[in-house]
């Protein structure tokens, strides 16, 4: 593949962006006087800032590249990752869970588990989360450096080092606030940078109608314009049941409601009302993001179907390399100038993914591992220093994991799999913990363990169609069921893991003694906590009103693009 032709104007845009990112870190340096300012942004940020950071932290490498790829492979059905797979979970987090996270004064998700359950549940969550975030950050770095190497012919090691250093400098200087402020900047850059691509691409294929006509030209892409209509047990996304319960309930709630990476953004808000509005403000742009990230994939297929000579998609194995949809569209449509802007947006998405993981790792490591198990009872200054050093160590370990990813592709698949096994049961523990005071620490911990092991077992006895490696499933040697795709398999593994975890938590809780008294659980469990009184001045500022509005727009969008 011949690379992009960049000129001085593209390089200027990239350099200006870098200097602003570093400048924000520099400007925040003087506020980093204590551990709370560095690791929790001093709990002082306005709701619109944390709201945009909330979705921007998730709008990393995998999102932009992966959703465009998925749009090219499965069409508009990919929106299920947004409209059913994110919005309901974000509403639930805002209305029902945020009062406990924010109100309990816990500084992290693992710390909430410690307050509500016990030490071992916190330890399990803290360690698995720390490993997961550091690997996620490494994967982001690896993907960015690989892309720069393929597209621009830049040296892999240099790209890796430069992007890692920039993230390191701005998170070291300004901590979580710096990461959050930069995520807001990156959010606008990603939207503004990709918009010209989508607009010109849509004009080229003849608008929505024209695109549908071109998609219908090929059997493979027929029905790509529908989100729900084509769903059946044979569809790669799986059945209605798999999408509703597997993706929409277990996986979505497990991610958006318990993953500290995103929850941390809401916890940095300045008030309870702002913390509850954070996911709702994020939900508003979130439901329109498919038009920015999924549509390019569909445009690419429409172009291929209609034989556009200037557009090619490189091959990989027996099919197209769908991960290159966005880069190849940038190359096809954008002249120098906006091309630099688009590339900068792409880099910004990788960096926000990296920085988000580094700052979340920082907080969990410093508070939940270092302060809890290694060196407790030191001064605040000491933990501030540890937080800063952890930033350096975190980035350094991420670089190492990036090289691990480069060496062993399967190692990455394998790790992601293990984390998927851990995440689905986690939501069961939270649900039971927050809404039932009878749930015990033993119940939650062994519920988690049994859910995770059952997930591994289901994975061992099933396979996606066309599986070639044991990482994809069937490692027991006996395959009892074959799913139409890896996605459908994931949805069902999540359903099983969640149900088993839920049942096990209930049974073990009933069999074990409650250790925490009602007084200790005030602010942590629904029935023992006074209802939050929202202090918003006007009705349209209330989280509940926002939640209804966001839900209504999502339903309308689903009907329009049925």
């Amino acid at each position, binding site marked *: 593949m011949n690379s992009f032709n960049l000129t001085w104007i593209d390089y200027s845009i990239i350099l200006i962006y870098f200097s*602003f990112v570093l400048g924000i870190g520099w400007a925040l340096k003087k506020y980093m006087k204590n551990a709370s300012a560095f690791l929790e942004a001093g709990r002082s940020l306005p709701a619109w800032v944390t709201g945009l950071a909330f979705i921007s932290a998730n709008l990393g490498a995998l999102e932009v590249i992966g959703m465009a790829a998925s749009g090219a492979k499965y069409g508009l059905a990919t929106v299920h990752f947004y409209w059913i797979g994110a919005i309901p979970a974000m509403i639930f987090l805002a209305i029902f869970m945020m009062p406990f996270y924010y109100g309990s004064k816990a500084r992290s998700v693992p710390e909430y588990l410690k307050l509500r359950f016990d030490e071992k549940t916190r330890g399990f969550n803290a360690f698995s989360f720390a490993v997961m975030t550091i690997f996620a950050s490494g994967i982001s770095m690896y993907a960015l450096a690989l892309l720069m190497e393929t597209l621009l012919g830049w040296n892999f090691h240099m790209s890796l080092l430069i992007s890692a250093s920039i993230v390191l400098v701005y998170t070291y200087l300004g901590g979580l*606030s710096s990461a959050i402020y930069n995520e807001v*900047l990156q959010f606008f850059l990603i939207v503004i940078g990709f918009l010209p691509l989508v607009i010109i691409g849509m004009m080229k294929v003849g608008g929505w109608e024209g695109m549908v006509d071109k998609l219908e030209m090929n059997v493979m892409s027929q029905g790509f314009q529908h989100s729900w209509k084509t769903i059946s047990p044979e569809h790669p996304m799986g059945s209605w049941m798999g999408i509703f319960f597997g993706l929409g309930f277990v996986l979505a709630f497990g991610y958006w409601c318990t993953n500290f990476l995103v929850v941390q953004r809401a916890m940095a808000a300045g008030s309870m009302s702002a913390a509850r509005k954070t996911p709702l403000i994020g939900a508003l742009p979130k439901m329109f993001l498919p038009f920015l990230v999924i549509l390019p994939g569909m445009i690419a297929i429409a172009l291929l179907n209609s034989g556009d000579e*200037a557009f090619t998609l490189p091959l990989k194995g027996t099919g197209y390399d769908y991960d290159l949809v966005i880069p190849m569209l940038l190359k096809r449509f954008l002249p120098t*100038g906006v091309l630099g802007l688009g590339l900068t947006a792409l880099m910004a998405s990788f960096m926000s993914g990296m920085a988000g993981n580094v700052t979340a790792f920082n907080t969990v490591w410093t508070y939940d591992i270092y302060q809890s198990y290694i060196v407790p009872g030191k001064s605040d200054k000491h933990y501030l220093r540890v937080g800063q050093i952890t930033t350096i160590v975190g980035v350094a370990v991420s670089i190492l994991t990036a090289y691990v990813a480069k060496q062993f592709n399967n190692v990455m698949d394998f790790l992601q799999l293990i984390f998927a096994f851990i995440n689905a049961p986690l939501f069961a523990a939270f649900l039971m913990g927050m809404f039932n005071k009878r749930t015990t620490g033993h119940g939650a911990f062994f519920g988690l363990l049994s859910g995770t092991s059952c997930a591994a077992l289901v994975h061992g006895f099933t396979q996606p169609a066309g599986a070639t490696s044991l990482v994809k499933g069937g490692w027991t040697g006996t395959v009892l069921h074959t799913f139409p795709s890896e996605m459908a398999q994931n949805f069902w593994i999540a359903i099983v893991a969640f149900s088993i975890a839920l049942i096990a938590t209930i049974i073990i809780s009933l069999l074990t003694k409650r250790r925490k008294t009602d007084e200790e659980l005030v602010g942590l469990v629904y029935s023992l906590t006074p209802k939050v009184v929202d202090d918003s001045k006007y009705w349209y500022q209330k989280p509940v009103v926002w939640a209804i509005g966001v839900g209504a727009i999502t339903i309308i969008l689903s009907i329009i693009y049925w």
Partner: protein
Amino acid sequence: MGLDIKLPIGAMFTIFGILLTVFGLSTGDNEMYEASLNININLWSGISMLIFGIAMLFAAYKTRKKDS
């Protein structure tokens, strides 16, 4: 946290806006716009970013005035 993020966002997009508007004007009939369906996309993006950038700077100015 003492920094108003609207300020750097406004400043960055104003700079991008000026840069691309000027570049778009100076390359008005360049053949490179064949790729973008003969639309001077640099000029249009530049103008949009300039408007967004100035609006953000104005909002930051309003916030500062209110706080002091």
